[in-house]
């Protein structure tokens, strides 16, 4: 979706055409350096704490709240939020506790995002590393393919995939992960191009290590920085895509629920039960903001231009 397009561009500029000079002076560990800078970034650290709290709440929360996410409370239908009744977020039209549903929905949204992001990272890293390492014609053919895929309108394809995999949410998001790997592949390729000229790769090759083993053992571990950054940008994209599909009624189906499904239900109850929209919507906004700040912080921390 459009949200992170600019960030994506900035990232690409930062990493793809990176033609590193050999660092002079005392060598420093890239990741330790980045970690130090990240710790100094207050906004990013706050965002990390908030996001961690959301994740923990999504994992353990459903077990702690007094109500279950799918069992109706027969004494409270469409009840507004109240402390006394224990329905802190209120209940929906079927008397189900909204707090429990929101926690559970957050869990599903995060799980779906995790699946899709994992798929996109694995495919993107391998594709980009192979293209960059092979070089020459293979490389240009593979990257040409990425260019073409880029030009395809994302939402159209998401909707088509939904038609194909609509029955199984987790399969659907694995498939969406297969649409999301393009930028990852570009970034990784750019990094690989400069990495493969480094001495340690030459040494490995001289030692008779096979190409594939060089990619996996020597190139990929050096890509951690950009891969982590871009993965943190992919997670919110997938969360939004999931919510969008669920909002349209195609994503996560009852009895499972997700933030998008909840927002869609809340939007349907507009004016009658505003809390049904506001609580899940609020959680989604906080989560997306936190992820945006984390992504920004990581990028600043790892930005090679800054060194």
């Amino acid at each position: 979706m459009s949200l992170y397009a600019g960030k994506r561009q900035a990232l690409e500029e930062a990493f793809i055409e990176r033609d590193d000079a050999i660092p002079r002076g005392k060598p420093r560990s890239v990741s330790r350096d980045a970690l130090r800078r990240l710790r100094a970034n207050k906004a990013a650290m706050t965002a990390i704490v908030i996001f961690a709290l959301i994740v923990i709440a999504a994992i353990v929360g459903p077990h702690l709240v007094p109500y279950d996410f799918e069992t109706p409370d027969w004494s409270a239908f469409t009840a507004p939020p109240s402390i006394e009744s224990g329905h802190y977020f209120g209940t929906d039209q079927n008397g189900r506790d909204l707090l429990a549903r929101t926690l559970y929905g957050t869990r599903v949204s995060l799980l779906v995002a995790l699946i899709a992001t994992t798929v996109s990272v694995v495919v993107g890293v391998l594709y980009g590393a192979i293209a960059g390492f092979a070089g020459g014609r293979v490389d240009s053919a593979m990257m040409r393919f990425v260019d073409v895929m880029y030009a395809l309108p994302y939402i159209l394809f998401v909707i088509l995939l939904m038609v194909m995999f609509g029955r199984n949410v987790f399969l659907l998001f694995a498939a969406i992960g297969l649409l999301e790997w393009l930028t990852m592949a570009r970034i990784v390729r750019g990094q690989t191009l400069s990495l493969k000229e480094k001495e340690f790769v030459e040494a490995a090759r001289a030692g008779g290590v096979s190409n594939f083993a060089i990619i996996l053992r020597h190139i990929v571990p050096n890509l951690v920085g950009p891969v982590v950054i871009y993965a943190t940008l992919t997670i919110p994209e997938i969360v939004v895509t999931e919510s969008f599909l669920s909002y349209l009624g195609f994503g996560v189906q009852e009895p499972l629920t997700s933030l998008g499904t909840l927002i869609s239900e809340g939007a349907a109850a507009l004016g009658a039960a505003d809390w049904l929209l506001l609580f899940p919507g609020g959680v989604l906004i906080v989560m997306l903001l936190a992820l945006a700040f984390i992504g920004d912080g990581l990028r600043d921390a790892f930005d090679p231009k800054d060194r």
Partner: protein
Amino acid sequence: MLTFVLKRLASTIPVILIAITVCFFILRLAPGGPFDQERALPPDVLANLRAYYHLNDPLIVQYLRYLLRLAQLDLGPSFVTKDFTVAQQIAIGLPYTLIVGGSAFFLAIVGGITAGIYGALYQNRSADWLIAIVAMAGLVVPNFLVAPILQLVFGVHLAWLPVGGWGDGSIRFLAMPVVVLALPHIARISRLMRGSLIETLNSNFIKTATAKGIGRRRVVLKHALRPALTPVVSYLGPAASYLLTGSIVVEQIFGIPGIGRYFVQAALNRDYGMVLGTVVFYMALIVVLNLLVDLAYAWLDPKVRQR
């Protein structure tokens, strides 16, 4: 100039071809077909229908037949909506999509540039911060959440605007969908504009102009604005295609009968002809819009023109 245009158009043909191919096969591999209904058709009728639409031929033959027809600029019949060809349906939906999308495009440019100039001229003052915060929110909060919140506030509680629908197509009906669609792009453009104007204002020719005693307003509007606009203009191409695909969501939420709604409906009904036709149309539109933006870019930046 003409060769430039023709070359650009020619280079997009493979992209469109791949998009068609991918769509075609995803749709055909998806479970279900255009003639599945609640009440199953009598087998003879179904067989006749399938034969009439050539659905019994091998896939590859159907694919080639579609391409052949497309080469004659014929999008073919709709499989589900009787009596309408795909082109006719697109023609019915197009004005709505164009009005909403075009207004949003205009609003994004005007609003974004104004906010960006304001932010650059009053750096780090409260107005600048306010714009930055709104821009962050506009970028992070997805449109399917902004929309119901606006509907809630302006439609339900304040009752200033209708919650949805097209009505008489007046500004009262258009306001919310257009704002929702434009918001992320206002945000993006204002950020681009602010950054690039600040950079331009620090350059030497602006100092010269100021030193010559030209008023501040004239310096900004006559000298700084045009060079500062280049990053904004290069974003307009992607923005146009995001607006086009983003309108799918907005049309769905606000119940506007544009192409996006037809597309979603067609995807759900497995209307093979309509889905492919819409994808082709979207892609063609995006190509044309990008071309126009490139031409504007060449007009703005002499460096590009000379190439």
